[in-house]
């Protein structure tokens, strides 16, 4: 028997369809969800921000949002290529003679987005939260130079009042360091050192960073955050300074660079700052393309414990045998060949530092090191993490070393985390790594190669080098500092050569011509307040 005859079935379907069509609402068409493109800057954040909690996040996507809805005591002067500091939440700051005690005068009349006034106590609260062991912040070490901060972070001191930061009154902050640090104010541009509203965090717990709950004080505020989909910032009309010029910032979360490029070409995205590396050669010729040196280096490290690279002469020979120009030509993305340790665009950069490319001298050095008969030279390995560009570079170096020095090189790639483990425990003879600056000061790079540094995987150490670096951090006289770094670099990349810098990084942008004043700078700090869209 048949309950639904054909006619009845069609009848039922049609009636239901009509009822549904009348009764159902269409989802808002999500093309920038009703944000007028004339008032909206649309860009690709590249991923979901792992956390908007500025005491906890460690990645650049989260930082990008945080830098636009929050502010620190100091900020880079983006108009200055060397990125000097300008006032932000702090109006001015002074240090005692040896740069170990700092006093910050804070701005008056700054309001959080819930209307409460900003005070020095909020800065103390932010630092306390950053350093509390229970917060488990990865960036806690950023403030280790503050007196007792490390002990507090380790749980050895329970009383935060013993830590060297005090709110003298609502507008004055006093910081005592455990050692002189001439660049200390630079650390305060970093999101981990931002003030925070502990009352807001306490009310909402882990979800305090969701729209409607979060309280900030920057030029923008968080309007929408649809996880794994998009984020929207809206102009903060209560911002203390000049208001943001564009009302909304719409951030997509598109991981695949070529997909984002397609959407850019379709006019759905206004600005791209991650481009598919294979396409850069083609895009370079376009008018909407811009490039900017960034404070990052790509380098090869030597495992100085394993022969043959326990001999500085061999290391020097290899570094000298690598023609960096060939590599940057191969990459074709505007990277700058680098033989010094401090990258281009940073104070302390010296183009001529380092071994340079000198094939005949390299051969001679290798002969002198006891490898006149190249057959005696052991087979060496270059290690890198699996990635197309790293592969191309390693293959190029392999060919160069074979041609120039007549030595055999094997390549070994590993998945990223596995590779990191190898680098920490048993690095290959030559291993690839990179380094990006957290703040525009050479200490960022120089500190990395100190004997005790967790990030020095070469197993090399030099007392004189360590002394120079420590001395330089205490020195406020810029000229004297430059001299010390110059000496230290000479030890690092000319005498002992535990590392061979390859190139200094650049960043690439595609900017639609309706967007004006998009900030390009060597730290890649994208403060969007002054961006205009037409």
């Amino acid at each position, binding site marked *: *028997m*048949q*309950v*639904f005859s054909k006619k009845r079935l069609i009848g*039922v379907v049609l009636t*239901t*369809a009509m009822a*549904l069509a009348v*009764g*159902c*609402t*269409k*989802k808002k*068409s999500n*093309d920038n969800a009703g944000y007028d493109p004339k008032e909206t800057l649309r860009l690709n954040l590249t991923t979901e921000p*792992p*956390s908007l*909690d500025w005491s*906890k996040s460690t990645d650049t996507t989260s930082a990008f949002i945080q830098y636009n809805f929050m502010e620190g005591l100091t900020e880079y002067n983006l108009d200055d290529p060397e990125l000097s500091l300008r006032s932000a939440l702090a109006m001015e700051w002074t240090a005692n003679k040896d740069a170990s005690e700092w006093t910050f005068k804070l701005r008056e009349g700054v309001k959080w987005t819930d209307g409460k006034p900003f005070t020095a106590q909020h800065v103390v609260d932010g630092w306390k939260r950053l350093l509390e*062991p*229970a*917060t*488990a*912040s*990865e960036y*806690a*070490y950023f403030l*280790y130079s503050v007196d007792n901060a*490390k002990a507090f*972070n*380790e749980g050895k001191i329970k009383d935060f009042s013993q830590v060297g930061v005090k709110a003298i009154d609502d507008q004055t902050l006093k910081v005592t360091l455990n050692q002189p640090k001439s660049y200390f104010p630079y650390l305060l541009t970093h999101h981990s050192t931002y003030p925070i509203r502990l009352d807001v965090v306490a009310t909402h717990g*882990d*979800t305090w960073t969701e729209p409607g709950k979060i309280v900030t004080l920057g030029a923008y505020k968080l309007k929408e955050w649809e*996880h*794994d*989909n998009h984020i929207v910032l809206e102009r903060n009309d209560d911002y203390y300074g000049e208001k943001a010029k564009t009302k909304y910032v719409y951030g*997509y*979360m*598109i*991981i*695949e660079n*070529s*997909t*984002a490029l*397609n*959407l850019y070409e*379709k006019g*759905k995205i206004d600005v791209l700052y991650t481009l598919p590396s294979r396409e850069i050669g083609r895009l370079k010729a376009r008018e909407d393309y811009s490039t900017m040196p960034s404070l990052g280096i790509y380098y090869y490290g030597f495992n100085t414990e394993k022969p043959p690279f326990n001999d500085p002469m061999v290391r020097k020979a290899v570094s000298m045998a690598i023609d960096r120009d060939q590599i940057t030509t191969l990459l074709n993305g505007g990277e700058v060949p680098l033989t010094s340790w401090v990258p281009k665009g940073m104070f302390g950069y010296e183009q001529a530092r380092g071994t340079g490319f000198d094939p005949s001298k390299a051969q001679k050095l290798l002969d002198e090191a006891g490898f006149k008969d190249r057959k005696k030279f052991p087979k060496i390995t270059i290690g890198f993490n699996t990635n197309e560009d790293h592969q191309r570079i390693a293959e190029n170096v392999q060919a160069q070393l074979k041609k120039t020095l007549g030595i055999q090189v094997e390549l070994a790639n590993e*998945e*990223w*985390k*596995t*590779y*990191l*483990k190898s680098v*920490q425990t048993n690095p290959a003879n030559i291993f690839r790594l*990179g*380094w990006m600056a957290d703040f525009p000061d050479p200490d960022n790079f120089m500190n990395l190669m100190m004997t005790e540094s*967790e*990030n020095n995987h070469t197993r090399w150490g030099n007392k004189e080098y360590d002394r120079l670096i420590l001395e330089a951090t205490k020195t406020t006289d810029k000229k004297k500092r430059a001299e010390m770094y110059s000496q230290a670099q000479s030890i690092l990349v000319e005498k002992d050569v535990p590392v061979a810098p390859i190139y200094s990084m650049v960043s690439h942008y595609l900017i639609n011509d309706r967007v004006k004043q998009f900030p390009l700078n060597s730290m890649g700090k994208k403060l969007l307040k002054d961006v205009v869209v037409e």
Partner: protein
Amino acid sequence: MKEKLSYLLGPALLICLLFTVGLSFFNYVIPTALWFADLFLAGAVFVYYTVSQNNVVYVAKRLAEAAVVIFVIASATFLLLRVLPGGPFDQEKALPAEVKANIDKKYHLDKPLAYQYYRYISGVAVGDLGESYKYIGRNISDIVSETLPTSIQLGVFSLILAFLIGIPAGVISASKHNTLFDSVTMAFAISGVALPSFLVAPVLILIFAFWLGWLEPALWEGPTYYILPVVVLGTRPAAVIARLTRASVLEVIRSDYIRTARAKGLSERVILFKHVLKNSLIPVLTYSGPLAAGVITGTFIIEQIFAVPGMGKHLVNSVTNRDYPLILGTTLVFSMALVLANLVVDLLYSYFDPRIKLS
């Protein structure tokens, strides 16, 4: 009465599901009543079918087995992850020991493995999958519930497309065995199986989004956005289904009872779609279980190329990040989908071929 019920439930469920999918495709908000109707009818069909076929014991047994399987998968994944070199907080900028100690303490990574395992399993037992290491402060269940629906949507559209194309193509090819139609269809099917989606996708994007401008190159915001990823994801299953159907139809079409049907004077159409098809679908059904589980839990490459905000990227990237809780969470979701899909397939076997007895 019992007969009447069986004739009512099936079509009603189909109609409801059809509407749900249709509304979802055209970007309408699906009324809660419809969701309830879907759930209720699916439950009713399942229970009715289980009871009327005397399969209650079988289903109960299978569900108990499923629980064991899930437990074993959860345990094995947990242990295998700890063997993988590299930890969740290893990064280019190594962390100072003090900072690392605080993090380990927060996530109980400083405790013995047995304790961590106990904590994890007892969490899973009550549905608490823990907190992501990478997406600080976000619960795994939140991440799954925010991304899985999109993956299901994409997966279901693609499955429907695959069946709608694959089955008729297979049946017609078989009935027109060794004709031009047959050769052309099978040539398409073979290329559909052979061509990788990361090649097909950019070509289709170029043609339909850039040259013709009919569709959108990426994102997941409405019908014009859905078509390309659905087609790319559906192509391979459609091709496989077409080939399976064709082979199986060719076998059935030569059997005695079909000859009898022909002798009775039934029209070729009735023979094909009523007698042949139903009996030919067993291999397709077998393939559909793992297929369904695979596509509805998210496919990394398609989601990546078309920027679809689904769960596929978490399935893969969580491993790269060594985000243990997220890896375990997504693996569990996938295994549950797989186990469930296979159970449904097994139940459907005896519907399509009553000779198959479940025990």
